[in-house]
């Protein structure tokens, strides 16, 4: 990075570290230091600790100390029908919720950035669900989805029969998806709105002048420029839903008939209720592997689109 005009100051700072500028590397260290320290101390180290725990034996009784158990916990998990069930359920859940939520968030973001009266109020209403404490939202929805609850009352009024919702093995997971989407759509919408408002009006005006109608403007101008925010929302949304469990804990306890038994929920049960930290740690490791694979896949797909 040699510059034709080098001032005495610059000459001082062109000491090299390999092909890197030493001053720059030092600056990077200082800038990154606190964050790296935080990430290492508060995420990586405990994660390694959890990994180590996953290789220990499950039970610690008085007189029976925790011993090295190798891959036992993993073996138990991978041969457990309940675990595989939870893997399937989680993949199904994430596979539906993420695209649906992202699409809805995008649609709403576009809708609410139009020049319509009270847009700010509508945006606020959409964001409100996320500001309700996470322990309370399930209570509200639990009451609404009760067999004798408000939603069924409305359905009854329009002629559709009462639905079992959370008490049905086929409707329980979609009900959880509904609750989660109610909470999350407004949150992701906010990020997408920021992305939309980044798009310079001039681009759209130019396209309009060229005769493109609304639909084509959306697909050929807006969407390509939204790639980054959308990618961000997709990945973050995927991660968030992979590690979701609170509504399940509050509303269905993993049932009916294991239909809502998400991996993280089962992990939470193991870690906190049964107290089997080793098994829980093994579950988390497996969950992480699955999640990482999905996210890497997403990155691959998104970047090939970019070049295409």
């Amino acid at each position, binding site marked *: 990075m040699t510059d034709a005009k080098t001032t005495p100051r610059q000459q001082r700072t062109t000491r090299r570290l390999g092909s890197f500028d030493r001053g720059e590397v030092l600056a990077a260290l200082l800038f990154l230091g606190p964050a790296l320290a935080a990430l290492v101390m508060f995420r990586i180290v405990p994660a390694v600790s959890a990994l180590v725990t996953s290789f220990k034996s499950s*039970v610690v009784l008085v007189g*029976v100390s925790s011993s090295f158990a190798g891959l036992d916990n993993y073996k138990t998990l991978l041969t457990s029908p309940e675990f595989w069930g939870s893997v399937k359920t989680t993949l199904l859940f994430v596979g539906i919720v993420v695209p649906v939520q992202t699409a809805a968030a995008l649609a709403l973001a576009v809708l609410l950035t139009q020049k319509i009266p009270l847009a700010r109020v509508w945006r606020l209403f959409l964001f409100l669900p996320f500001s309700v404490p996470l322990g309370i939202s399930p209570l509200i929805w639990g009451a609404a989805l009760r067999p004798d609850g408000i939603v069924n009352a409305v359905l009854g009024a329009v002629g559709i029969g009462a639905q079992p919702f959370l008490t049905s093995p086929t409707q329980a997971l979609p009900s959880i998806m509904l609750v989660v989407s109610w909470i999350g759509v407004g949150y992701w919408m906010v990020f997408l709105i920021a992305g939309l408002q980044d798009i310079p009006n001039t681009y759209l005006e130019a396209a309009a002048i060229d005769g493109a109608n609304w639909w084509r403007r959306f697909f050929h101008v807006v969407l390509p420029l939204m790639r980054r925010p959308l990618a961000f929302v997709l990945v973050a949304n995927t991660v968030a839903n992979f590690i979701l469990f609170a509504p399940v804990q509050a509303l269905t306890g993993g049932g*009916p008939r294991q239909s809502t038994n998400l991996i993280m929920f089962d992990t939470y049960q193991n870690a906190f209720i049964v107290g089997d930290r080793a098994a829980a740690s093994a579950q988390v490791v497996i969950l992480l592997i699955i999640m990482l694979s999905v996210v890497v896949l997403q990155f691959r797909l998104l970047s090939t689109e970019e070049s295409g």
Partner: protein
Amino acid sequence: MRAAGFGLSLSAAGAFLAGCGGGQEGGGDGITFIAAEEPANFRPVIRGFEAANRGMTVSYNNYPFDQLNSVLQSRLQSEDTSFTCYAVDQPRVPAFAARGYLADLSDRVGDVEGQVLRTSYEASSYDGKLYSLPIWTSEQVLYYNTALLEKAGIEPPSTNPESRWTWEETFSAAKEAQGAGAKWGLVFSQVNRYYQLQPLPESLGGGPGLRGPDLLEPDITNDAWVEAFEWYRKTFSEGLSPRGIPPEQNAALFAAGDVAFYVGIPSDPTFEEAKKNGQIDWGVGAHPYFEGGEAVTPTDSWSWGINPFVEDQEAALAWLKYVALTKKGALQGAQLVPVMPAHSEAFREYLDQLQTQSTEPDGVADLLDHELENTAVHRPRSIGYVQFEEILNTAFDDISTGADVAKTLQRASGELRRDLEPLRSALEQQG
């Protein structure tokens, strides 16, 4: 320069933050106590204790029941010393004791057996040692809505344990009441919870669900279990009981006058209120049993134990002894909570008070006395109780939503067997 100053202010902030804050250390004359009751409910007993023990203070923190066990579990496993004593759900005493979460109180509290109810003493012990002091006990009775029964022309059940109804009789009476206009026929307060449903298979001789020398072998697929839960399943499939309502919201149903029969704790404050307000008139009958079987009722409640990782346990011990072993403390502890004190004399007084209460029908006190002595069963004293309860509650949920009983119990049995396996082998290691 700039960066350095910035770094300095960061570390200053850090130091400030680290110093700031509450901070509680267990031990000494300060007692830190954790349980599931709202703080207001313990104010009388805490005041009473502090008055009787100058210099000692009780700092109380509460968590909702589900969270309480998780929090305790997690903290004790980490050998946390920020609390000195806590309330332990009696069926969990074996599990906690075996994991070293409870201090052995055997020779430190004098004669407990003579002062508390027999069932409560049993429930606070494990492996021959006393690991906690019993505070409360519980029972269940059959409530009925007077008006709904009258409308259907049903003769109400009585509090005489000799003439208690069978579950089959209750079922048909419930159906009749619904025929005459009751919205729901029969509701269990703790729907789909093992505590509430244990009496069903036990009444038919099916056992508690665990067997073997250490109660670590599942036994939930025998005929009695299947039969009992086929009956239970019918209460939902035939519309006697609503599906999908969480236990906490069930009392409201009965108080609103929508339910003919309700199985719940005696002297439920919501119902007392509702009766006094004229909202509903109700009576009480003895807990039913299965035709040809035994009369069985659920029991057990809370004991209080000491965190073994705390060095100085004397103050905590004094607190426990005050509430468990003095009549005054026991009565104060049960004053604002709808439970029955485990202290024998306090229990007597509780029963006497119950007799005189206008809202309670005659004979309730005698009934409770009888049940505790004769029909109450503990939940299995197994170190695998937590897993057991979790898996069973899920199975009950499924049965209530219509799943096939035998299949559900089979699956649960398999899962339970797998989950209890590590405990079985650990016990073998322990020798």
